[in-house]
């Protein structure tokens, strides 16, 4: 099988975009021994090492592989929804070369042995890089912080309670303070559960017409505002896991202007869809946080373009039939996204809402920087995690073609433009579109 081939690779005549250094040229990229040798014009013409696999990428984009900061993978405990193997197949097909899996598994990833299990399991079964986040509090209960020092030493790249907020401000303050001693990143889901209550979608006229209980934007801003004040008090490194509304952007801007170590993500869903896409109670668009209004979506995209929001993540959350084929209010929230995040993001590029390099930066360079991982760049010596994309290929998404074990995609039957044609992880081609 050629997929395990480690011969040098020359991606020739491509448009090479490296957001880590505002680099956008037409030229060649040489990969050898699992690392990027160089990217410039005329490498192929000057002669490449014996046995190099020369791939003509004329008219195609070459960019760093995506680093997805937020994906739920079912291992351990929910392998029927997704395994590290199936998630990594989906990731490779979507151009994601690094998955950051979430700790809300069963058992929860809250001790060093479980971190070790995930890393070993990923090494043995996954075809892309996998790094776990560990729980911020034991059992995700929001009461006692986990062994942040030992977990980080075991390989946890950040600390989060997944899709739960730590409501106890004292616990959050101490965790931020303590994590600071280890320079550990805290990733926090900002949604006040009491304000969410029984809400199932954005609080709006549309929700009222559908007869569904709403979730106010304040549920997010109240928690984010609280967190920022705690960061100011404790000085930890903080990342807002999933921003959904315009009001949160003001809070973020103030935090960044004040020089706090604060970064934020938005999901691909929140920058490409809005609450109206729910239409006739489509449960695949029931998300946490909920899809907001079109104005929110536009402002989120603008915030990414300007770098106020640092990263775009998939928020990949596989749900099977029995959790989704239910009345809207009873269905589980979440959508898969690993395989579609780039192609969905390209919609914004094609419509002129965001620069290509800004989109790629938010999906590769910035998440790698925020997490302190080596990817997200095409600089010489960097790991050869690279994607080749046909930016203009039109296609219609057929859920049955998806690699993910669950098919709950909000882009069901969507007409898309642009797709990943090759994914290279550590110098090895792990996915090829034929």
């Amino acid at each position, binding site marked *: 099988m050629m997929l395990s081939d480690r011969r040098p690779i020359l991606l020739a005549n491509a448009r090479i975009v490296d957001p880590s250094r505002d680099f956008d040229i037409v030229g060649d990229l040489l990969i050898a021994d699992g690392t990027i040798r160089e990217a410039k014009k005329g490498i192929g013409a000057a002669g490449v090492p014996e046995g190099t696999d020369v791939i003509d990428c004329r008219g195609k984009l070459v960019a760093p592989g995506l680093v997805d900061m937020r994906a739920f993978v079912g291992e351990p405990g929910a392998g029927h929804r997704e395994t590290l193997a199936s998630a990594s197949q989906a990731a490779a097909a979507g151009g994601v070369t690094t998955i950051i899996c979430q700790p809300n598994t069963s058992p929860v990833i809250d001790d060093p042995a479980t971190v070790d299990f995930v890393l070993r399991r990923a090494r043995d079964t996954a075809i892309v890089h996998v790094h776990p986040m560990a729980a911020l509090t034991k059992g995700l209960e929001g009461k006692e912080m986990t*062994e942040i*020092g030992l977990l980080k030493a075991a390989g946890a790249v950040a600390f989060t309670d997944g899709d739960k907020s730590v409501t106890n401000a004292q616990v959050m303050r101490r965790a931020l*303070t303590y994590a600071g001693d280890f320079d550990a990143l805290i990733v926090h889901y900002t949604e006040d559960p009491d304000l969410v209550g029984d809400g199932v979608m954005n609080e709006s006229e549309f929700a009222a017409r559908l007869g569904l209980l709403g979730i106010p934007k304040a549920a997010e801003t109240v928690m984010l505002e609280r967190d920022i004040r705690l960061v100011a008090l404790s000085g930890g490194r903080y990342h807002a896991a999933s921003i959904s509304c315009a009001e949160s952007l003001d809070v973020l801007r103030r935090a960044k202007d004040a020089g706090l170590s604060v970064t934020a993500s938005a999901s691909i869903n929140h920058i490409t869809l809005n609450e109206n896409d729910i239409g006739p109670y489509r449960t695949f668009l029931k998300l946490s946080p909920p899809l907001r209004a079109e104005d929110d979506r536009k402002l989120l995209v603008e915030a990414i373009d300007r770098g106020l929001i640092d990263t775009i993540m998939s928020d990949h959350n596989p749900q099977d039939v029995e959790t989704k084929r239910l009345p809207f209010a009873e269905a589980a929230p979440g959508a898969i996204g690993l395989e579609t995040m780039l192609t969905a993001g390209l919609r914004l590029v094609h419509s002129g809402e965001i620069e290509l390099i800004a989109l790629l930066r938010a999906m590769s360079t910035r998440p790698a920087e925020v997490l302190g991982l080596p990817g997200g760049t095409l600089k010489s010596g960097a790991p050869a995690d690279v994607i080749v994309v046909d930016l203009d290929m039109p296609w219609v998404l057929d859920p049955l073609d998806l690699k993910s074990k669950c098919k709950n995609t909000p882009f069901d039957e969507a007409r898309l433009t642009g797709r990943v044609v090759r994914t290279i992880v550590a110098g090895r081609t792990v996915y090829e579109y034929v």
Partner: protein
Amino acid sequence: MNIAPKSSFVLSRRHLLGIEGLSRDDISGLLDLGEEFVELNRQVEKKRTSLRGRTQINLFFESSTRTQSSFELAGKRLGADVMNMSVGQSAMRKGETLIDTAITLNAMHPDILVVRHHASGAVELLASKLDCSVINAGDGAHEHPTQALLDALTIRRNKGGIEGLLVAICGDILHSRVARSNIILLNQMGARVRVVAPSTLLPPGIERFGVEVARDMREGLNGADIVMMLRLQRERMNGSYIPSLSEYFHYWGLDEKKLAYAKPGALVMHPGPMNRGVEIDSIVADGVQSVIREQVEMGVAVRMAVLEALSRNLPNA
């Protein structure tokens, strides 16, 4: 055998409520006096009469074995009548206020009251309502002056002096009265003080106490002459200030490896009671660099010195 001590040092104040406010001469005077009592305590005949006829009440609102017995022995060796009152038996349990307790005790005409209380400032409050001398045996997270004095005496006897030494105080600084008294005393005597703890166990503003601050033991113990470990107050720890005892020991517990960051021959100290395997490894606690048992011995001597020096100031002395 009843020879008066050579030192005629008088502590020119009625109470000893803290190290704060003591001059360098006060501290040296108490340590010199303590030195004499160390010798006395090593003899068969340990009895003195300087407190004969005096009544000393040990009022402990917080249980303590070593401090209370140390004060009891100190008082008895100086000839005082010593009475121990602990909160379990006292009327405070029945709802009496601190002030009422003070008034009641005052009516019994004690000469010296030794008080430990769980609330910072409680000893000072009592002292303001009493006619006798009051010695603070530890109030909340505020001060524990006799502990700092006994630590100083231990250091001085082992290192020949205090000035210029680098003392690393490690662990739960936030809740520690021992740390506060030691920081004040050591600064007053010209030592360099460094505190070492996770940020959650450091009080805000600690860097303005005249100490260096380190968050990890390698940096914190580097070049230290003295490594002073503090007891982790386990009852309020788990998950709140630190994630677990095992992580705490891994990063901040004193073991041989971490002790090696300090100067060769650095002293290991601990005010007790120790949590072995939490803040200190048994091998280190019982090792050649440990002076933990000597600290207990110095405790009795220093408390005798405090009682003696204060008693010289009592009416009719």
